[in-house]
């Protein structure tokens, strides 16, 4: 039997507030831990940040004072969860090292979700996006070697390959072409809703991270690369958020958020190798069960509907951080030259795309190209980490 979060009660809300001592979590080792532990931390931080921001938006639209107070109480617990989760990251890591872990999340989270997404249109959206995250990882990895003389495989280990994806310079599309068609909330598989919310939250956190930390770098090429990729994250958030049916009521969305948090904490608890981190996933799952219960009550009261109508009867299979190398290689072989037109995908560089490219590049090479040129100048080669052989796309192989 699977786990049905609706059938469990968690920790009562009034007992969820933690003291400083409880929030003072011990960070993971930046060099010797499981890279996927860091990925799970980064993912859950993104999920909690989305939970907090969504709850704030809901509160701003909520005239009922009593409900507003209840939302504030749940939100405070989520804010503490966010602190406990994100403070697991080590202060010893540099911004670029954390960035490389963010891109490992983007690659292996989106890759896994693409593999397990039942809806073909949504699957295509993830497959399209993951090839771009994959290229960002490669560009940042080259910057990392230039600045810190370290190879990104000391961070991602042999779990994720580092090599070109769809070239970053081609990610700059006209904003209108980043808007996808939403799924239909009345017919979609409940799992698809969780996938969309998860990837959207992760990309939103990545966008916020880059737009804040980018200017902390002093090296011009680093500042510029964060600016460029930061703008692509804006495109990705647009791409993924437009997949979500805007017809979902506020209460329905709240239930989906809380349900997804239960799903992910449950998933990560099942696979966590670090016992101290696992204890946090366990604790937070038990907090989320209560948040979900409260959200379900609110939905029943304000929408007059039973949340069971919109949720799966039990949690889907655990969402897993694991290598997606073969799958990514297949995409590299078949989807490198895609771009978007309207809500669909094409292989031609259409007029609106070309115009956007001219405007943003202004006839020059963008930072994502210059970082590679500077790296080649310094080392006489590129940094790549190809554990499974040559790049599947012949044109993307390293030239000597």
């Amino acid at each position: 039997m699977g786990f049905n979060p609706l059938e469990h009660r968690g920790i009562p809300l009034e007992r969820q507030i933690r003291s400083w001592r409880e929030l003072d979590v011990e960070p993971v080792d930046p060099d010797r831990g499981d890279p996927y532990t860091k990925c799970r931390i980064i993912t859950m931080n993104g999920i909690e940040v989305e939970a907090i921001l969504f709850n704030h938006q809901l509160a701003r639209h909520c005239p009922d004072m009593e409900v507003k107070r209840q939302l504030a109480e749940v939100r405070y617990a989520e804010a503490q969860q966010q602190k406990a989760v994100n403070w697991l990251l080590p202060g010893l890591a540099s911004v670029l090292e954390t960035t490389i872990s963010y891109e490992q999340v983007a690659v292996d989270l989106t890759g896994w979700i693409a593999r397990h997404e039942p809806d073909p249109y949504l699957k295509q959206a993830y497959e399209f996006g993951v090839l771009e995250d994959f290229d960002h990882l490669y560009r940042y990895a080259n910057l990392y070697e230039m600045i810190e003389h370290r190879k990104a495989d000391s961070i991602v280990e042999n779990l994720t390959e580092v090599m070109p994806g769809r070239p970053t310079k081609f990610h700059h599309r006209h904003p209108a072409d980043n808007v996808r068609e939403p799924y239909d909330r009345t017919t979609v598989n409940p799992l698809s809703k969780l996938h969309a919310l998860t990837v959207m939250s992760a990309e939103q956190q990545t966008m916020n991270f880059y737009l804040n930390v980018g200017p902390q770098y002093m090296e011009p090429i680093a500042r510029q690369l964060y600016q460029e990729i930061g703008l692509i994250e804006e495109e990705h958030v647009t791409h993924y958020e437009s997949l979500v049916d805007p017809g979902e009521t506020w209460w329905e969305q709240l239930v989906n958020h809380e349900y997804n948090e239960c799903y992910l904490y449950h998933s990560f608890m099942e696979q966590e190798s670090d016992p101290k981190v696992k204890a946090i996933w366990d604790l937070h799952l038990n907090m989320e069960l209560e948040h979900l219960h409260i959200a379900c009550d609110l939905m029943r009261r304000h929408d007059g509907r039973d949340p069971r109508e919109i949720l799966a009867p039990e949690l889907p299979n655990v969402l897993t951080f694991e290598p997606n190398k073969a799958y990514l290689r297949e995409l590299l072989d078949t989807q490198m030259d895609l771009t978007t037109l309207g809500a669909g995908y094409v292989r031609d560089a259409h007029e609106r795309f070309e115009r956007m490219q001219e405007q943003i590049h202004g006839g020059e090479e963008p930072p994502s190209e210059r970082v590679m040129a500077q790296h080649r100048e310094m080392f006489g080669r590129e940094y790549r980490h190809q554990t499974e052989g040559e790049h599947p796309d012949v044109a993307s192989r390293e030239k000597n």
Partner: protein
Amino acid sequence: MAGIAADDADVVALLMRQHGDIRNLFDEVEKAGGEERRAAFRRLVRLLAVHETAEEEVVHPFTRTSVPDGEAVVEARLAEEREAKEVLSRLDGMDTDDPKFLPGLDALRKDVMAHARSEERYEFIHIRRSADKARLASMATALRAAEAMAPTHPHPGTESAAKNLTLGPVAAVIDRTRDAVRKALGKDG
């Protein structure tokens, strides 16, 4: 502003890369065994000695005189250094195959890394702010002279026990590094 690709132009870029080289050597020592580990560990000890000596000769003096409250910044760094040196000296007398070696190495790695990150965040950032281009470049030249005292990679055939003996104990490496740095500073400063 010095770009990171302009290799010789910026002492901070060089120092940050040396921090990476040190971390790479820690990885190498940990992964190797037997004679290879012994040799990699000797390289690590040498690189640490050279790196710290160069910082004491080149970087800290600049911070003391040119950075606001530089004295306090340097004192904090030296305290971290002393801590790391104590761990290192305990480790230095130990056989690299000793079961206590790897846990000790791990403690040293964390101390050294914390020290390096503190330098990057609380000292180097001020150097880039306070030093002009010419000064960053002349300090870089001195650092390069020091770097030559500590090869990070083994040169085939040269890393024999005899060669290690001729390189001598750490104290001698420090002396030679100090001489090389001072000579370079005198020439360029």
